[in-house]
């Protein structure tokens, strides 16, 4: 007599996943991100030339605008832009993802500890976070990069950039995590767990952290976008690793050729825009999915 109720997963994550799937722009964003990741992973196989190769110079096509053989054109120095953009994809994604992960780890640790404990520990952590938050991050990143890049081995340049970016980037995340921890800390289920004998560490990691995951996931996605943009600025200004192809480096070269070879600045820039756009759309979609605000 009654309609059979469908059995559907009703967990918070299942609901969020369904909402995400229905969000067109979120799906487009995820597709874009997947595309770039694919390009990045396959870069050594799909790029026509090796990284930083001047081969086209010897083929006599240096300085040519986009053509069928060289879809993004060739720099006056002989570097094929299409090839370099592909190589850059791998490197920029690496920086973005690695820096985001490292930042999240530091940010969560600092934010959760600072938000959970009371008293001097919390105050000191808050102060340190504030200092790092107020610092003009880009300026010090540039300075650090300039000083330390000459000290590292070839090949570790990008990793150093990742470390520097995280070193100056964790404070925003730490603030948000701190806020969330403060909010969750006062909730009844935490009091209940404490009354059942849970100690601080257990409370923190098994009860509080899982409940602040939603905003954390959203932030992670969005800061990947931010770090890619920052890396691009750093390399553009010439403070990045000059031996590793990144989109920023290409833009730096493009800027020198601004009057003659407009294609060198255009295409790497488009790559940045679309990859960052992808992460932003994905992040927005996650935010909507995890924080429903529909009317009943």
């Amino acid at each position, binding site marked *: *007599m*009654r*309609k059979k109720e469908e059995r559907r997963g009703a967990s918070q994550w299942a609901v969020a996943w369904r909402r995400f799937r229905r969000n067109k722009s979120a799906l487009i964003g995820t597709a874009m991100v997947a595309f770039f990741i694919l390009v990045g992973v396959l870069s050594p196989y799909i790029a026509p030339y090796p990284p930083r190769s001047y081969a086209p110079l010897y083929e006599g096509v240096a300085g040519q605008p986009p053509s069928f053989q060289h879809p993004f054109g060739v720099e006056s120095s002989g570097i094929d832009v299409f090839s370099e953009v592909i190589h850059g994809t791998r490197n920029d994604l690496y920086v973005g993802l690695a820096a985001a992960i490292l930042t999240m780890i530091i940010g969560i640790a600092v934010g959760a500890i600072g938000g959970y404990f009371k008293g001097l520990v919390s105050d000191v952590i808050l102060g340190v976070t504030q200092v790092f938050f107020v610092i003009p991050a880009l300026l010090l990143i540039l300075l650090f990069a300039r000083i330390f890049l000459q000290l590292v081995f070839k090949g570790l340049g990008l990793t150093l950039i990742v470390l520097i970016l995280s070193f100056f980037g964790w404070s925003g995340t730490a603030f948000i995590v701190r806020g969330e921890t403060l909010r969750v800390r006062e909730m009844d289920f935490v009091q209940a767990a404490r009354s059942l004998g849970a100690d601080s560490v257990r409370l923190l990691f098994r009860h509080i952290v899982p409940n602040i995951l939603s905003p954390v996931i959203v932030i992670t996605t969005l800061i990947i976008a931010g770090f890619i943009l920052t890396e691009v600025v750093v390399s553009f200004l010439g403070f990045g690793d000059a031996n590793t192809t990144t989109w920023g480096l290409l833009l730096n070269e493009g800027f020198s050729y601004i009057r003659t070879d407009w294609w060198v600045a255009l295409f790497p820039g488009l790559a940045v825009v679309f990859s960052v756009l992808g992460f932003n759309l994905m992040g927005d979609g996650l935010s909507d999915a995890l924080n429903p605000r*529909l*009317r*009943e």
Partner: protein
Amino acid sequence: MTKLLEVTDLRTYFFTEAGVVKAVDGISVSVEEGKTIGIVGESGSGKSVTAQSVLRIVPRPGKIVDGTIRFDGEDLLAKSEAEMRKMRGNKMAVVFQDPTTSLNPVYTVRKQLTDILLLHKGLTKDQAGKTALGLLEKVGIPEPESRLNAYPHELSGGMKQRIAIARALSCEPKLLFADEPTTNLDVTIQAQVLDLLKQLQKEYGMTMVMITHDMGIVADMTERVTVLYAGKVMEESDTTTLFTQPAHPYTEALLKAVPSVAQTRSLEVIPGNIPNLIEPPTGCVFHPRCRYAKDICMRQDPQWEKVSAGHYVACHRWRELKLEGRS
């Protein structure tokens, strides 16, 4: 006695991404001037949306798609937006459930009250301020002068609700909708606020519509009751008869769910959940949760039938069932 408000076969639907939500699906309700009626139902039954429809402030994506609404002899659905605006807060008003969210957090009490007075009554700022003071006194707020300059977040729940009532009554409306006015308040404050409403109604000669899910409030304040479920009317009657001789299984269940000192049996819960208003159940909309449901209840919409003078019900089986009321 003339009917101040007459709603006939109202249908208000919400056109959402997930589907069309039939929040109000054929509701008819009326009130005589000077009386108090109750509209009872669970959340999602359409009680608030009915009030919003009368004032025509149904939020997007909702729209009134059918029905007539007559107020004081005039057809409200035929009026222009500008004409409706003149009536809102002036001839008809609403007191909302949660005073914490129904008052604007960034303006003082004085500003929120005088805004309306200036709008409808054309008073000067000074006159409006004095009137606002008088209103605060009338709703029983101690030290009204200092409260006038306070912000909502500085006041207790009970006081905020009194101010919300003052705001609703500031232009002496003919019709007042009280949408769960005490649900968010402490139990001790609830009685005070209800008494205040009763007193003010007598004083102003207002017509009041009490929207609630609490049968206790219905018993205390109303003369006639309309019972709603899933956007439709289940039963309508004067209050005493509804309590002593309910004709609809849903009404019976509501009455059984109210605790009383006298009774010794355990409270009964109405099984099941509120129905999906996008795809409501076929036939009688209450049948999935009705203990008396039979085959016909699933297949056919019940008719609106007269039980006795002033007592109507929408149920296939009301003649056969012997339902339990309370005294």
